[in-house]
């Protein structure tokens, strides 16, 4: 099963990148992971999830208390790949133009020139995204969904790859805006890091007292490799039984929650599963891949009736009671 699908090369437009062999994806990810873990102690799962999200052309929302390393995780992953990285610190007074960029009148050339905002980067870190008002948040919507921004009626493409890693603060509810449901849905995954355990924290302290390791972090791969890896992931085989399984999972959430997951969620789920399969060096998705991704891909898109029951528990039930075939 290690042979690449023969038709893929021929069918692809000349400009499209050549996919990497599946077996190399695993190595690539291992490299990135070990690189990142020089900065981040523990959180291996989260690291993997972020990597698969990037490979699966998704965006990630990190949701946790401040200070557990959300930003550091995003930065270290971005730095591990030799690509452009921009950080946007969301504040209550941040305006949409601050994100997308503005047209500025150039006195010299007597013309308006576009002054690209921080969103024009391969990896964008939206820090504390929920501190900005919905209007500004919505500037992200188009960017995340369409990979393009429109300023003064002019549409500009974002670089490829384009990944948003946003963090949001779970405390201070009075000073934050809840993310619109539509925006939430555009994040492939929502992750929580949680506190490191005692051992990890001790280790973490040991690293952080000197120079912060992130400063010395070197890229382990380049943009082209990342693009090709994403192409590989896109070609991972998803057979009908797996698609049907994902459909059943989605159906379960719709039956057991006020708002279940959207078809966009199912697409995200399968893309994440593709990346997960590639990570395991497999050319096809198995239900296990779906199951591994489902909690982080589906949970944040579910609205339940009661407070005792959240998206996570609905997804857990869905995984338990949905037949795998």
């Amino acid at each position, binding site marked *: *099963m290690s042979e690449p699908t023969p038709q893929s090369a021929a069918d692809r437009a000349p400009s499209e990148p050549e996919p990497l062999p599946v077996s190399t994806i695993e190595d690539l990810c291992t490299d990135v992971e070990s690189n990142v873990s020089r900065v981040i102690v523990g959180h291996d799962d989260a690291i993997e999830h972020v990597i698969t999200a990037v490979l699966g052309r998704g965006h990630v929302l990190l949701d946790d208390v401040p200070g557990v390393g959300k930003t550091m995780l995003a930065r270290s992953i971005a730095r591990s790949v030799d690509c452009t990285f921009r950080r946007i610190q969301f504040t209550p007074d941040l305006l949409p133009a601050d994100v997308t960029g503005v047209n500025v009148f150039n006195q010299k050339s007597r013309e308006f020139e576009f002054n690209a905002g921080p969103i024009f980067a391969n990896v964008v870190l939206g820090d504390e995204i929920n501190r900005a008002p919905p209007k500004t948040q919505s500037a992200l919507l188009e960017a995340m969904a369409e990979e393009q921004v429109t300023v003064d009626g002019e549409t500009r493409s974002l670089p490829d790859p384009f990944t948003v890693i946003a963090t949001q603060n779970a405390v201070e509810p009075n000073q934050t805006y809840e993310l619109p449901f539509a925006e939430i849905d555009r994040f492939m995954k929502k992750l929580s890091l949680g506190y490191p355990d005692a051992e990890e924290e001790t280790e973490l302290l040991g690293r952080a007292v000197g120079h912060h390791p992130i400063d010395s972090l070197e890229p382990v791969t380049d943009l082209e490799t990342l693009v090709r890896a994403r192409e590989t992931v896109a070609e991972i*085989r998803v*057979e*009908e*039984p*797996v698609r*049907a399984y994902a459909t059943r999972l989605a159906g379960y959430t719709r039956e057991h929650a006020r708002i279940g997951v959207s078809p966009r969620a199912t697409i995200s789920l399968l893309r994440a599963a593709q990346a997960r399969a590639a990570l395991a060096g*497999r*050319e*096809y*998705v*198995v*239900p*296990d891949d779906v*199951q591994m991704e489902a909690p982080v891909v589906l949970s944040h898109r579910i609205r339940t009736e009661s407070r005792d029951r959240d998206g996570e528990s609905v997804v857990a039930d869905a*995984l*338990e*009671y*949905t*037949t*795998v*075939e």
Partner: protein
Amino acid sequence: MSTDSRGRTVDVDLEQSVGAGPFRLLALACVAALIGSYVWVLREVTQVVGGTGSLLVLVGTMLVAATVLARAIRPRTATAAAIVVVVVGFAYYLEATGVGVDAALAATGTILDDTAALATGLPLLRMVEAGLWTLGFAPGPAFLSWYLAVRGRYALAVVPGGLALLFLVLTGDAGTTITLIGTASGIGAVGFGELERRGGSVAQADLLAVVFAAMIVLSLSVTILPGEDEGATFSGGGDGTLEGTIDTADERSGISGQVDLSPEVRFTVDSQEQSYWRTGVYDRFAGDEWVRSGSLDEYDGSIDGPPGDHETVSQRVTAQTELGVLPGAAQQIELEGPPVRHAEVSAHGQPQPADTLVEGDEYAVESAIVDPDPDELRAAGTDYPDDVIDDNDYLQLPEDTSSEFEEYTAEVTAEAETNYDAAVAVEQYLRSSKGYSLDVDQPAGNVAEEFLFEMDEGYCVYFATSMVQMLRAEEIPARYATGYTSGQEIDDGEYVVRGLDAHAWVEVYFPDHGWVAFEPTPGDAREDEHNDRLEEAREDGHDDVDIEESEDVPISDDEDEEEESDGEEPNESDDEEPNESDDGQADDDGPDDTEPDDTEPGDADDGTSANGGSGDGFDPQEVVTITREQLAIGLLALIGLAAGVRRTGASRRARREFRLYWHGRRGDPDEDARRAYRRLERLLAREYRPRRRGESSRQYLSALSAAESLDPRAERVARCYERATYGGGVDREAADEAIATVDDLARERLPLLDRF
């Protein structure tokens, strides 16, 4: 399961799979055999009553029509056509029998009753227009069966044919062998049809053969066991029951085979005149048995008497044992007494009780005895009333009656100028040319012919059968009567009748007079046997052989007379006596003598023939009928069992169990890999726990291997399954390996199979 919906690609494995062609041929052959099985049963009927040619032509036409129309019309149209054919056929039958279609429409209840009677064991031969009935019955199912078979709908094709056969089984006409052939054909048709449809292999055909074998062996043993002594299974076996299915058993249960042979006293008669005590009349000869056609009507206070002069004789009959018949001098015209309540009367005027008489039951009989002079009979002419000639089978000969038989009869009666002379000639010929013996083997084929041409001796049944058939060959209406001879006269007008006295004789119709009895059985040597036997029984201390007084009275007193009569009778043929009915009844004539002998013969032979020998009480019928009932019950039980098994899902479970150890036909490698894995899952489920719903194969196996020592081979099968299901497929080799692995794993868990 989504995977099942994928098209099954037939992986043509030349070594294993047989083309659809042979299976189609086999399936068609099976359907043909099924049709053939019930047509054969119907043919047996038409051979007796005529119309075999028409039947075969009709069925042949239907088969051709079905073949031609198979491509032309749709199943619904064909079904409608078959129904039309059936309806038209039966309408014709009803018109022909004089019932009329209108009447049929008006009297649905009657028709339902008739159908119910048929379906509960009334043999087809008892129907008045049995031949026409078969012509109405045969074409519809044959057409529909063959039509469906040609269209490849084998399972459906079995339905009409199977129903037709089932009906014949219920009427008791289809013997075990034919039923078995029909059933096996039906199953074969379905089996081979299925194999054709799915592109089966030789291995599966083998399986079908195993199923056949098991079925046949089982069904034979099942039918053999209940009636062990009679070897009931193959009806019409060579045991020589002359009278086969004549009556329904329950009406005759009082006299069983052995009892008949026995010297036990059956009943006593108080009569002004000595007579044969008739208990049954049969008109239809089937070559190896006599059948009474027509239905039974409730006794309504009187029975039609003879058309001409007759004297009336009163008798009082007392049953001395259980008795399933109503003996009385022919022709009974009036009955009285508790036992005859609800009595039924056959189409031939013979009454029979609705319930078995018990010891001590008593009834009075008024009989009209026809006692004309020979001259009167000679002058009777041949102007037979319609109801004797047309509506009955009194001239019926089996279709296979040879021309030699008719020619020979013509020679015997060459000198006779009148029907009476002809009857006397035949009577005398038989009495003088054949010996009497109880110890005969029943011949195969037409008993009348065999007795006339091949046998030197026989007993009353043979003599009477041959005589009836010979007379019929001469166009003289005749019928076969059974009953008892007059028995031992112990007092003035009191007769003791024993099982030994059972007898069969002949009745011949004469216009303006009615039925006159003839006695073709030679009486000479028999009484001795009768007496010996009775003496033997007395010496053995049997209680039932005598009633009070009868022991003291010499049995031989009859004998003396008999001897005289014997002597007379041969001579008498010219004179009055030949028609024994007169003489016999009047005094102790020859008839008596001859009769006793006859009864005994029955004993001497094997049980079956014994029955034949005895009068009407014939046990053989009982035996045969019981067998058929058992058969019907057995079939029903099987059907019920099958339904039950199906309902409880036992068959499905068994199949699943079987499929656990046997992969079955291999086809698409992906499908094979999936099946292999499912078998593995079931194996593991049995050993550890079933896979949970939300558990993937990986999780299941790793959970098992974490908790138990899981065979690492299981992992390989699961990987193969994964590739087949999610990874775009596996190749043949991988699938085979998975199958082999699961086979090994399964066998290791079933010690018995280690060897293979």
